[in-house]
């Protein structure tokens, strides 16, 4: 796709409470060439991020109703782990209706697989080349 050389199989955290969509997201992550780490809720996600310090990208659904507002979680992640890239998706929200954390990207559901895969690769690549 967009990369000039194969990227490392970085772990990507998929935060999605809808099982089928989570499966679909995992397959997208793998298709992009990364290792998928699953989280079923935002609380899960925070715990995983605390444990897996190698996670470079979070792909998160903002619509999860049973937890804190997705966009707040995203902001918290950005604040607590600044180097981690964030891709957000939502069916309820539109790109215009959310205030994205810095460097975060948003794709409205239903997502365009090609688009999101390209975004994952682009962000990881940019992340790798940024001084740690």
């Amino acid at each position: 796709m967009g990369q000039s050389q194969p990227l490392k199989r970085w772990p990507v955290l998929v935060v999605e409470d809808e099982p089928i969509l989570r499966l679909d997201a995992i397959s997208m992550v793998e298709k992009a060439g990364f290792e998928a780490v699953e989280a079923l809720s935002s609380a899960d996600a925070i715990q995983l991020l605390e444990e897996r310090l190698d996670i470079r990208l979070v792909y998160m659904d903002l619509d999860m109703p049973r937890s804190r507002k997705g966009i707040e979680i995203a902001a918290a992640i950005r604040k607590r782990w600044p180097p981690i890239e964030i891709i957000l998706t939502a069916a309820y929200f539109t790109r215009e209706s959310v205030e994205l954390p810095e460097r975060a990207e948003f794709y409205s559901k239903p997502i365009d697989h090609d688009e999101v895969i390209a975004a994952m690769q682009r962000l990881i690549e940019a992340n790798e080349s940024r001084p740690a």
Partner: protein
Amino acid sequence: MVSNVEGIAMGDVHDAPRMADMLSAFDWSKTSLGPRSDWPTSLSTAVDIMMASGHAMCLAWGPERTFLYNDAYIPILGKRHPFAFGVTFAEAWPDVWDEIKPLVDKTFAGETSTFRDMPLLMTRNGYPEDTWWSFSYSPVRGENGEVAGLLNVTLETTDRVKAERDRDAATAELQRSEVKWRQLFETLEEGFVLGQVIRDDTGQIIDWRYEEVNDAWYDLVGIERGCAVGQTIREVFPGVEDEWVLEFARVVETSQAIRFTRQVGDLQRWYDGVCQPAGADHFTVLFLEVTDRVNADRRREALAELGRMLTAIDDPEDIVRAATALIGRTLGVGRVGFGTVGEDGETFVVPSDWTAQDYPTLAGTYRMDDYGGYAQDLREGRTVIIPDIRLDPRTSGDTAPLESVAVRSLVNRPVREKGRTVAILYVNDGAPRDWTPEEVQFITDAGNRTWIALERRRAEKEARETAAFLSSVLAASTDCIKVVELDGSLSFMTDGGMKVMEISDFNTVRGCPWPEFLKESGPAYALEAIEAAKRGETTHFEAPADTYVGNPRHWSVSVSPILGPDGETARILSVSRDHTELQKAREQQHLLNGELAHRIKNTMSVVQAIAHQTLSKAEDQDAVAAFGKRLGALAAANDVLTRDNWSSARLGDVARKALETFGEDRFTLAGPDVMIGPRATLALTLMLHELATNAAKYGALTAPEGQVTVTWAVRRDGDKDVLDLSWVERGGPAAVEPTRKGFGSRIIRMGLTGSGGVQLRYEAEGLSVQATAPLYQIQEA
């Protein structure tokens, strides 16, 4: 004594020598009388009598007519005294001797002469004065019976003469004056009557007789000259009002003059008069005809009275009734009515009219043309004045209709408004009548005033009803209707408005700035709306505002200018409707729509995920990708529709959303603001998605410089509006018609409404597509 004699008294009588003394002292021996002792008895006796008398006397005695006189005579002599004493008569009165000698001689011949009122200018009180004297020369017999002397007895008659002269002068003056007054009497413009009252057996005055009457009087009352003298007033004017007898009787009985202004009998004439007692059951009356003045006064008073009545009376019918009665009584006519003329200029409606006794009313509805040939004059606003309908060409043809309702003469005064005769004031009389210009003017004035009053009443009534109606409408409204001044301050609020705003006393908010009642964007909207209203525009906005007691409400506010007389915005009308419930419903609906959109898109995501997972091993992954992208396009359309609750969407928004993911810089979108329905939104989205997908695969978007122009326009086609939308690719490779027509092609060919109307041209410059559909189909739900 004669007229030109002048007598001057010698100083004070008491200082002058007493004649008795002079008689004694005088040396008579030197006279022809001889010494006193020798005087005959007759002489002594005559002298004694004379000296003792208080009347002026003198005595001429003897052949020499020796002159003697008494004290009373001295003033007559003047400065001749005391020289004249004892001289001859001729010496005493030398200057008149020639004149009196014949008298003296006659007296000595035995005759007595008497003179009356002889004038004598006499200075006896320090100044010359005219005096008159009567005297007699009588002979005095001597002892032998011969005439020995002459006794002159003198009586002053000055007072009597003067009195008689005064009387004569007065008499002459009286005569002159009588002539003068007689002339005046005859030439007087005022009528003059000298009358004598006639009493019955009990002495009661019951009538009076014309003794003297001047020509002016005959002319004034219109009776042949000379016909009244000798007759009584009751004979001259049968049925004359009793006042004419009673009042003059009172003048005679009380000797008190009276003044009066009165009408005489049937003559319709008015007189100012003065009646004065003239003694012995006589009186004089001076008349001046003041009919014109009285009538002018009456008309003027009537107009003033009319003005008062018109102000005081409210009911239009009462106004007409009062006005016509006043006009009728003032003019002394048979009938007065006020009718209105219909807009057709033909129907004439008289609600009621005023009539004198025995006149039938004309109340009713008429056709103007039924009443003679003057209807056209009335329609055109000309006052119709007919002294006698039998003589006027407009009515003489057939006088029966008018005469049958006792109309012989008439004045009809049209009232005009906006070039049309709207009402007519008619004044009729059963007898021919010469209408004076003043009377016609009066009718005109009265008619106009009455009409104006009626119109004003009508307008007031309408205004009252309108005000009451508007007030009830305003009160019934649950909208908060306010008047806002140009500076934004509140100046009025309806009762209904206060109720919904929960304001108990408007004074608590009067003058407060209205925009500050609103919340959120409300104040800004309100200020914009005020500015727009000042420009004459009406605007509308929605904003939340708490009621006066703090209950939150959402308002739909309409703001419009209230124009002043100059056409400029004078004030601002703000009507706020409580949309709280509506707003809640809307919010709920919005929430539900949002939720629905979320679920739809979520479901789409699940469908997409299932498809991906199901087809992950399929060979045609492009088809899987295409499916995902079409689903994405559908979701995009869903987003656009969600914004307006799935009712409609802007064509521009739909196109932009559909093409968003293909690179915004590659498209040029242009067209008017057209709303399209949800079905057209889906169709257009899918169509544009397919076109863009194709362009990205084979068309203009494959080239870096390639561009797509999407334009649309609404045009009139016959009796309906049609939307044209064009897709033009340029800057890419030449377009080639695909050999295989898949689902995408079919979506494109379905067009804007799913039923075609699409033309594709594969040109060397690139693909161009024209899609056309009736606007109403595109806009339907």
